[in-house]
Protein backbone atom coordinates (compact mmCIF):
# COMPACT_ATOMS: atom_id res chain seq x y z
CA UNK A 1 0.00 0.00 0.00
CA UNK A 2 1.05 3.57 -0.42
CA UNK A 3 0.40 6.64 1.68
CA UNK A 4 0.76 10.36 1.22
CA UNK A 5 3.08 11.76 3.89
CA UNK A 6 3.08 15.48 4.58
CA UNK A 7 5.62 16.99 6.94
CA UNK A 8 7.32 20.24 7.75
CA UNK A 9 10.88 19.68 6.56
CA UNK A 10 13.40 22.30 7.61
CA UNK A 11 10.56 24.78 8.01
CA UNK A 12 8.85 24.10 4.67
CA UNK A 13 5.85 21.91 4.06
CA UNK A 14 6.66 18.93 1.83
CA UNK A 15 4.60 16.00 0.73
CA UNK A 16 5.32 12.72 -1.04
CA UNK A 17 3.62 9.48 -1.94
CA UNK A 18 5.54 6.60 -0.33
CA UNK A 19 5.01 2.94 0.43
CA UNK A 20 3.81 2.12 3.94
CA UNK A 21 7.17 0.44 4.54
CA UNK A 22 9.30 3.36 3.31
CA UNK A 23 11.78 4.48 5.94
CA UNK A 24 12.05 8.15 6.82
CA UNK A 25 15.65 8.19 5.57
CA UNK A 26 14.59 6.77 2.20
CA UNK A 27 11.88 9.37 1.82
CA UNK A 28 14.37 12.13 2.65
CA UNK A 29 17.09 10.90 0.33
CA UNK A 30 15.17 9.32 -2.53
CA UNK A 31 11.89 11.23 -2.70
CA UNK A 32 12.97 14.64 -1.48
CA UNK A 33 16.60 14.72 -2.64
CA UNK A 34 17.89 15.54 0.83
CA UNK A 35 21.04 13.45 0.74
CA UNK A 36 22.79 15.09 3.67
CA UNK A 37 21.34 12.42 5.94
CA UNK A 38 23.42 9.26 5.47
CA UNK A 39 22.81 5.55 5.81
CA UNK A 40 25.78 3.87 7.44
CA UNK A 41 24.51 0.61 8.83
CA UNK A 42 20.75 0.45 8.28
CA UNK A 43 20.62 -1.53 11.54
CA UNK A 44 20.07 1.26 14.12
CA UNK A 45 23.66 1.20 15.32
CA UNK A 46 25.75 3.94 13.73
CA UNK A 47 23.80 7.21 13.94
CA UNK A 48 24.80 8.47 10.47
CA UNK A 49 21.07 8.87 9.78
CA UNK A 50 20.18 10.99 12.84
CA UNK A 51 17.62 13.74 12.18
CA UNK A 52 15.24 15.58 14.49
CA UNK A 53 11.55 14.68 14.56
CA UNK A 54 9.49 17.14 16.56
CA UNK A 55 12.64 18.43 18.19
CA UNK A 56 14.18 15.11 19.24
CA UNK A 57 17.01 13.21 17.64
CA UNK A 58 16.04 9.88 16.10
CA UNK A 59 17.61 7.33 13.79
CA UNK A 60 15.78 7.92 10.53
CA UNK A 61 16.66 4.40 9.33
CA UNK A 62 14.47 3.06 12.16
CA UNK A 63 11.42 5.27 11.73
CA UNK A 64 8.82 4.89 9.00
CA UNK A 65 8.08 7.90 6.83
CA UNK A 66 4.40 7.26 7.58
CA UNK A 67 5.09 7.67 11.32
CA UNK A 68 6.20 11.22 10.55
CA UNK A 69 3.04 12.34 8.78
CA UNK A 70 2.23 15.71 10.33
CA UNK A 71 5.59 15.95 12.10
CA UNK A 72 8.26 18.59 11.94
CA UNK A 73 11.56 17.18 10.68
CA UNK A 74 14.94 18.89 10.70
CA UNK A 75 17.93 17.57 8.77
CA UNK A 76 21.49 18.79 8.42
CA UNK A 77 20.36 20.84 5.39
CA UNK A 78 18.13 22.88 7.67
CA UNK A 79 20.88 24.29 9.88
CA UNK A 80 22.87 26.80 7.82
CA UNK A 81 21.42 30.22 7.08
CA UNK A 82 22.33 30.79 3.47
CA UNK A 83 26.12 30.65 3.33
CA UNK A 84 26.51 31.03 7.09
CA UNK A 85 27.04 27.72 8.82
CA UNK A 86 25.28 26.95 12.08
CA UNK A 87 27.67 27.49 15.03
CA UNK A 88 27.81 23.73 15.61
CA UNK A 89 28.77 23.11 11.99
CA UNK A 90 31.34 25.90 12.19
CA UNK A 91 32.78 24.34 15.35
CA UNK A 92 33.24 20.99 13.58
CA UNK A 93 35.11 22.80 10.80
CA UNK A 94 37.26 24.84 13.19
CA UNK A 95 38.16 21.89 15.39
CA UNK A 96 38.83 19.35 12.64
CA UNK A 97 35.85 17.37 13.92
CA UNK A 98 35.57 15.45 10.66
CA UNK A 99 37.77 13.56 8.29
CA UNK A 100 35.73 11.74 5.64
CA UNK A 101 32.59 13.47 6.85
CA UNK A 102 30.32 10.46 6.55
CA UNK A 103 29.28 10.44 10.20
CA UNK A 104 29.21 14.22 10.52
CA UNK A 105 25.56 15.04 9.72
CA UNK A 106 24.46 12.53 12.36
CA UNK A 107 27.06 13.79 14.84
CA UNK A 108 25.91 17.39 14.41
CA UNK A 109 22.20 16.55 14.71
CA UNK A 110 22.84 14.40 17.78
CA UNK A 111 25.00 17.14 19.33
CA UNK A 112 22.23 19.70 18.86
CA UNK A 113 19.77 17.51 20.75
CA UNK A 114 22.29 17.27 23.60
CA UNK A 115 22.85 21.03 23.70
CA UNK A 116 19.09 21.65 23.65
CA UNK A 117 18.82 19.64 26.89
CA UNK A 118 22.13 20.57 28.39
CA UNK A 119 23.60 23.87 27.11
CA UNK A 120 26.96 23.34 28.80
CA UNK A 121 27.80 19.63 28.60
CA UNK A 122 31.02 18.29 30.11
CA UNK A 123 33.42 16.19 28.08
CA UNK A 124 32.12 13.11 29.90
CA UNK A 125 28.50 13.97 29.14
CA UNK A 126 29.34 14.50 25.47
CA UNK A 127 31.11 11.15 25.25
CA UNK A 128 28.17 9.37 26.90
CA UNK A 129 25.71 11.12 24.61
CA UNK A 130 27.58 9.92 21.52
CA UNK A 131 26.87 6.29 22.41
CA UNK A 132 24.70 5.97 19.30
CA UNK A 133 27.04 7.74 16.85
CA UNK A 134 29.97 5.87 15.36
CA UNK A 135 32.93 7.44 13.59
CA UNK A 136 35.48 5.32 11.77
CA UNK A 137 37.96 8.15 11.19
CA UNK A 138 38.54 10.66 13.93
CA UNK A 139 38.88 8.68 17.13
CA UNK A 140 36.17 10.98 18.52
CA UNK A 141 38.55 13.34 20.27
CA UNK A 142 38.03 16.25 17.89
CA UNK A 143 34.32 15.55 17.67
CA UNK A 144 34.06 15.99 21.43
CA UNK A 145 36.13 19.18 21.19
CA UNK A 146 33.90 20.45 18.37
CA UNK A 147 30.72 19.85 20.34
CA UNK A 148 32.13 21.60 23.38
CA UNK A 149 33.12 24.58 21.23
CA UNK A 150 29.82 24.53 19.35
CA UNK A 151 27.87 24.53 22.60
CA UNK A 152 29.94 27.44 23.83
CA UNK A 153 29.33 29.40 20.63
CA UNK A 154 25.61 28.72 20.94
CA UNK A 155 25.69 30.11 24.49
CA UNK A 156 27.08 33.29 23.02
CA UNK A 157 30.74 32.52 23.69
CA UNK A 158 30.37 32.07 27.44
Amino acid at each position, binding site marked *: MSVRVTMTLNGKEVSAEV*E*DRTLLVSMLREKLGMTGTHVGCD*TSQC*GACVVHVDG*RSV*KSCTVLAA*QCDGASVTTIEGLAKGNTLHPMQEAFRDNHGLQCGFCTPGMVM*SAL*DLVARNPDPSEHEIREWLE*GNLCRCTGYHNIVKSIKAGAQAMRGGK
Partner: protein
Amino acid sequence: MYSFNYRRVSSVDEAVAALGKAEDGKLMAGGMTLLPTMKQRLAQPSDLIDLSGVGALAGIKREGNRIVIGAMTRHADVADSAEVRSAIPALAHLAGRIGDPQVRNRGTIGGSIANADPAADYPAAVVGLGATVHTNQREIAGDDFFTGMFDTALEDGEIITAVSFPVPEKAAYVKFPNPASRYAVVGVMVARTGGGVRVAVTGAGPSVFRVPAMEAALAKSFSAAALDGITVAADDLNTDIHASAEYRAHLVGVMAARAVAAAG
Protein backbone atom coordinates in the same frame (compact mmCIF):
# COMPACT_ATOMS: atom_id res chain seq x y z
CA MET B 1 11.41 -5.24 4.76
CA TYR B 2 8.38 -7.11 3.46
CA SER B 3 5.41 -4.97 2.58
CA PHE B 4 2.66 -4.28 5.13
CA ASN B 5 -0.19 -1.88 5.82
CA TYR B 6 0.55 0.93 8.24
CA ARG B 7 -2.16 2.45 10.37
CA ARG B 8 -2.04 4.99 13.18
CA VAL B 9 -4.83 4.67 15.72
CA SER B 10 -6.01 7.16 18.31
CA SER B 11 -7.51 4.91 20.97
CA VAL B 12 -6.96 1.49 22.52
CA ASP B 13 -10.38 0.38 21.26
CA GLU B 14 -9.44 1.34 17.73
CA ALA B 15 -6.20 -0.63 18.10
CA VAL B 16 -8.12 -3.70 19.29
CA ALA B 17 -10.51 -3.43 16.34
CA ALA B 18 -7.65 -2.96 13.87
CA LEU B 19 -5.81 -5.98 15.31
CA GLY B 20 -9.00 -8.02 15.03
CA LYS B 21 -9.45 -7.16 11.36
CA ALA B 22 -5.83 -7.68 10.33
CA GLU B 23 -4.65 -11.01 8.99
CA ASP B 24 -1.48 -10.90 11.10
CA GLY B 25 -1.43 -7.50 12.75
CA LYS B 26 1.21 -6.25 15.13
CA LEU B 27 1.24 -3.29 17.47
CA MET B 28 4.04 -0.80 17.03
CA ALA B 29 5.24 1.37 19.89
CA GLY B 30 8.68 2.97 19.38
CA GLY B 31 9.56 0.53 16.61
CA MET B 32 13.10 0.24 18.00
CA THR B 33 12.91 -3.54 18.15
CA LEU B 34 10.10 -4.25 15.72
CA LEU B 35 11.47 -2.35 12.70
CA PRO B 36 15.00 -3.83 12.94
CA THR B 37 13.42 -7.29 13.28
CA MET B 38 11.27 -6.68 10.20
CA LYS B 39 14.23 -5.38 8.23
CA GLN B 40 15.98 -8.67 8.95
CA ARG B 41 12.83 -10.38 7.72
CA LEU B 42 12.48 -12.17 11.04
CA ALA B 43 8.94 -10.82 11.32
CA GLN B 44 6.40 -10.31 8.58
CA PRO B 45 3.24 -8.72 9.94
CA SER B 46 0.46 -7.91 7.47
CA ASP B 47 -0.43 -4.76 9.37
CA LEU B 48 1.41 -2.42 11.72
CA ILE B 49 -0.84 -0.64 14.18
CA ASP B 50 0.98 2.40 15.49
CA LEU B 51 0.05 3.33 19.07
CA SER B 52 1.90 6.66 19.05
CA GLY B 53 -1.34 8.57 18.44
CA VAL B 54 -3.02 7.15 21.55
CA GLY B 55 -2.43 10.07 23.89
CA ALA B 56 -3.95 8.23 26.86
CA LEU B 57 -1.10 5.70 26.79
CA ALA B 58 1.72 8.21 27.34
CA GLY B 59 2.64 10.01 30.51
CA ILE B 60 3.78 9.59 34.09
CA LYS B 61 1.75 10.26 37.21
CA ARG B 62 1.95 9.66 40.91
CA GLU B 63 -1.02 7.87 42.45
CA GLY B 64 -0.62 7.59 46.21
CA ASN B 65 2.44 5.49 46.84
CA ARG B 66 2.81 4.39 43.22
CA ILE B 67 4.34 5.80 40.08
CA VAL B 68 2.20 4.95 37.06
CA ILE B 69 3.90 5.05 33.66
CA GLY B 70 1.83 4.84 30.48
CA ALA B 71 2.86 2.10 28.04
CA MET B 72 3.84 4.59 25.32
CA THR B 73 6.10 6.64 27.58
CA ARG B 74 9.54 6.91 25.99
CA HIS B 75 12.66 5.85 27.87
CA ALA B 76 13.99 9.44 27.71
CA ASP B 77 10.85 10.77 29.40
CA VAL B 78 11.14 8.27 32.25
CA ALA B 79 14.83 9.16 32.66
CA ASP B 80 14.09 12.90 32.71
CA SER B 81 10.90 12.81 34.80
CA ALA B 82 11.17 14.84 38.00
CA GLU B 83 8.47 12.61 39.52
CA VAL B 84 10.38 9.38 38.82
CA ARG B 85 13.74 10.86 39.78
CA SER B 86 12.50 11.88 43.19
CA ALA B 87 10.33 8.83 43.97
CA ILE B 88 12.32 5.98 42.34
CA PRO B 89 15.70 7.29 41.23
CA ALA B 90 16.79 3.73 40.40
CA LEU B 91 14.10 3.57 37.71
CA ALA B 92 15.10 6.90 36.14
CA HIS B 93 18.73 5.72 36.23
CA LEU B 94 17.80 2.46 34.50
CA ALA B 95 15.79 4.19 31.76
CA GLY B 96 18.60 6.69 31.15
CA ARG B 97 21.07 3.91 30.43
CA ILE B 98 19.08 2.01 27.84
CA GLY B 99 20.85 1.92 24.48
CA ASP B 100 21.65 5.43 23.28
CA PRO B 101 19.85 8.80 23.21
CA GLN B 102 18.10 8.12 19.91
CA VAL B 103 16.83 4.73 21.09
CA ARG B 104 15.64 6.37 24.31
CA ASN B 105 13.84 9.09 22.34
CA ARG B 106 11.67 6.47 20.58
CA GLY B 107 11.63 3.25 22.64
CA THR B 108 8.82 2.78 25.16
CA ILE B 109 8.32 0.89 28.39
CA GLY B 110 5.36 -1.02 26.96
CA GLY B 111 7.31 -2.10 23.88
CA SER B 112 10.29 -3.12 25.95
CA ILE B 113 8.43 -5.37 28.36
CA ALA B 114 6.12 -6.80 25.66
CA ASN B 115 9.22 -7.76 23.73
CA ALA B 116 10.79 -9.40 26.83
CA ASP B 117 14.31 -9.52 25.46
CA PRO B 118 16.40 -11.54 27.94
CA ALA B 119 18.96 -8.71 27.98
CA ALA B 120 16.50 -5.81 28.32
CA ASP B 121 16.69 -3.54 31.36
CA TYR B 122 13.04 -2.85 32.23
CA PRO B 123 12.21 -6.45 33.19
CA ALA B 124 14.58 -6.07 36.15
CA ALA B 125 12.56 -3.04 37.29
CA VAL B 126 9.17 -4.65 36.78
CA VAL B 127 10.14 -7.70 38.84
CA GLY B 128 12.66 -6.06 41.18
CA LEU B 129 10.29 -3.31 42.24
CA GLY B 130 7.23 -5.59 42.33
CA ALA B 131 5.38 -3.60 39.68
CA THR B 132 1.95 -4.33 38.21
CA VAL B 133 1.38 -4.45 34.46
CA HIS B 134 -1.98 -3.01 33.40
CA THR B 135 -3.53 -4.13 30.14
CA ASN B 136 -6.78 -3.39 28.34
CA GLN B 137 -8.11 -6.61 29.92
CA ARG B 138 -6.59 -7.06 33.39
CA GLU B 139 -3.78 -6.43 35.83
CA ILE B 140 -0.78 -8.77 35.82
CA ALA B 141 1.65 -8.99 38.74
CA GLY B 142 5.21 -8.24 37.65
CA ASP B 143 6.30 -11.61 39.03
CA ASP B 144 3.91 -13.39 36.64
CA PHE B 145 4.47 -11.26 33.56
CA PHE B 146 7.70 -12.66 32.09
CA THR B 147 7.26 -16.31 31.19
CA GLY B 148 10.38 -17.07 29.14
CA MET B 149 12.74 -15.82 26.47
CA PHE B 150 10.80 -13.23 24.41
CA ASP B 151 7.67 -14.59 26.08
CA THR B 152 5.13 -12.93 28.36
CA ALA B 153 1.75 -13.60 29.94
CA LEU B 154 0.10 -11.35 27.32
CA GLU B 155 -2.67 -13.01 25.31
CA ASP B 156 -3.13 -12.41 21.58
CA GLY B 157 -4.53 -8.95 21.09
CA GLU B 158 -3.90 -7.87 24.67
CA ILE B 159 -2.48 -4.36 24.93
CA ILE B 160 -0.33 -3.04 27.78
CA THR B 161 -1.73 0.30 28.90
CA ALA B 162 0.54 1.15 31.85
CA VAL B 163 3.00 -0.16 34.39
CA SER B 164 2.64 0.92 38.01
CA PHE B 165 5.58 0.81 40.39
CA PRO B 166 5.20 0.94 44.18
CA VAL B 167 7.70 3.42 45.61
CA PRO B 168 10.39 1.40 47.43
CA GLU B 169 12.20 2.46 50.62
CA LYS B 170 15.37 2.25 48.61
CA ALA B 171 16.52 0.65 45.39
CA ALA B 172 19.34 0.63 42.88
CA TYR B 173 19.98 -0.88 39.47
CA VAL B 174 23.46 -1.72 38.29
CA LYS B 175 24.29 -3.36 34.98
CA PHE B 176 27.30 -4.67 33.20
CA PRO B 177 26.44 -3.34 29.75
CA ASN B 178 27.40 -4.84 26.46
CA PRO B 179 29.91 -2.23 25.29
CA ALA B 180 28.34 -1.95 21.83
CA SER B 181 24.57 -2.09 22.37
CA ARG B 182 24.31 -1.27 26.10
CA TYR B 183 21.96 -4.21 26.58
CA ALA B 184 22.57 -5.89 29.93
CA VAL B 185 25.10 -8.71 29.91
CA VAL B 186 23.89 -8.85 33.51
CA GLY B 187 21.76 -6.25 35.28
CA VAL B 188 20.53 -6.43 38.87
CA MET B 189 17.79 -4.42 40.55
CA VAL B 190 17.84 -4.55 44.35
CA ALA B 191 14.97 -2.98 46.28
CA ARG B 192 13.94 -2.78 49.92
CA THR B 193 10.20 -2.37 50.17
CA GLY B 194 7.57 -2.56 52.88
CA GLY B 195 7.00 -6.15 51.77
CA GLY B 196 10.66 -7.25 52.01
CA VAL B 197 13.74 -7.21 49.83
CA ARG B 198 13.70 -8.02 46.13
CA VAL B 199 16.64 -8.94 43.93
CA ALA B 200 15.85 -9.29 40.21
CA VAL B 201 18.39 -10.28 37.58
CA THR B 202 18.15 -9.58 33.85
CA GLY B 203 20.55 -10.49 31.06
CA ALA B 204 21.86 -13.59 32.79
CA GLY B 205 19.14 -16.14 32.03
CA PRO B 206 16.48 -16.73 29.39
CA SER B 207 14.20 -14.41 31.34
CA VAL B 208 14.41 -12.15 34.38
CA PHE B 209 14.58 -14.05 37.71
CA ARG B 210 14.72 -13.38 41.45
CA VAL B 211 17.41 -14.68 43.80
CA PRO B 212 15.67 -15.80 47.02
CA ALA B 213 18.92 -16.56 48.88
CA MET B 214 20.13 -12.99 48.34
CA GLU B 215 16.74 -11.57 49.28
CA ALA B 216 16.74 -13.52 52.58
CA ALA B 217 20.29 -12.44 53.43
CA LEU B 218 19.56 -8.79 52.64
CA ALA B 219 16.34 -8.88 54.66
CA LYS B 220 18.50 -9.76 57.69
CA SER B 221 21.20 -7.23 56.93
CA PHE B 222 20.94 -4.81 54.01
CA SER B 223 24.63 -4.62 53.19
CA ALA B 224 26.88 -5.78 50.37
CA ALA B 225 28.75 -7.95 52.87
CA ALA B 226 25.57 -9.93 53.53
CA LEU B 227 25.88 -11.31 49.99
CA ASP B 228 29.35 -12.79 50.59
CA GLY B 229 29.40 -16.45 49.62
CA ILE B 230 25.97 -16.47 47.95
CA THR B 231 26.26 -17.68 44.37
CA VAL B 232 23.85 -18.51 41.56
CA ALA B 233 24.28 -21.71 39.59
CA ALA B 234 25.49 -21.27 36.02
CA ASP B 235 23.46 -24.26 34.78
CA ASP B 236 20.48 -22.38 33.39
CA LEU B 237 22.26 -19.16 32.42
CA ASN B 238 22.97 -17.90 28.90
CA THR B 239 26.17 -18.45 27.00
CA ASP B 240 26.80 -16.37 23.90
CA ILE B 241 29.61 -14.47 22.18
CA HIS B 242 29.46 -11.81 24.89
CA ALA B 243 29.85 -13.97 28.00
CA SER B 244 29.80 -17.55 29.21
CA ALA B 245 27.21 -18.80 31.70
CA GLU B 246 29.93 -19.06 34.37
CA TYR B 247 30.99 -15.46 33.81
CA ARG B 248 27.38 -14.32 33.97
CA ALA B 249 26.89 -16.21 37.24
CA HIS B 250 29.91 -14.41 38.64
CA LEU B 251 28.61 -11.05 37.42
CA VAL B 252 25.28 -11.58 39.17
CA GLY B 253 27.09 -11.55 42.53
CA VAL B 254 29.21 -8.54 41.62
CA MET B 255 26.33 -6.47 40.22
CA ALA B 256 24.08 -7.38 43.18
CA ALA B 257 26.70 -6.25 45.69
CA ARG B 258 27.24 -3.01 43.77
CA ALA B 259 23.49 -2.40 43.65
CA VAL B 260 23.17 -2.88 47.40
CA ALA B 261 26.05 -0.47 47.96
CA ALA B 262 24.50 2.06 45.57
CA ALA B 263 21.09 1.79 47.26
CA GLY B 264 22.87 2.78 50.48
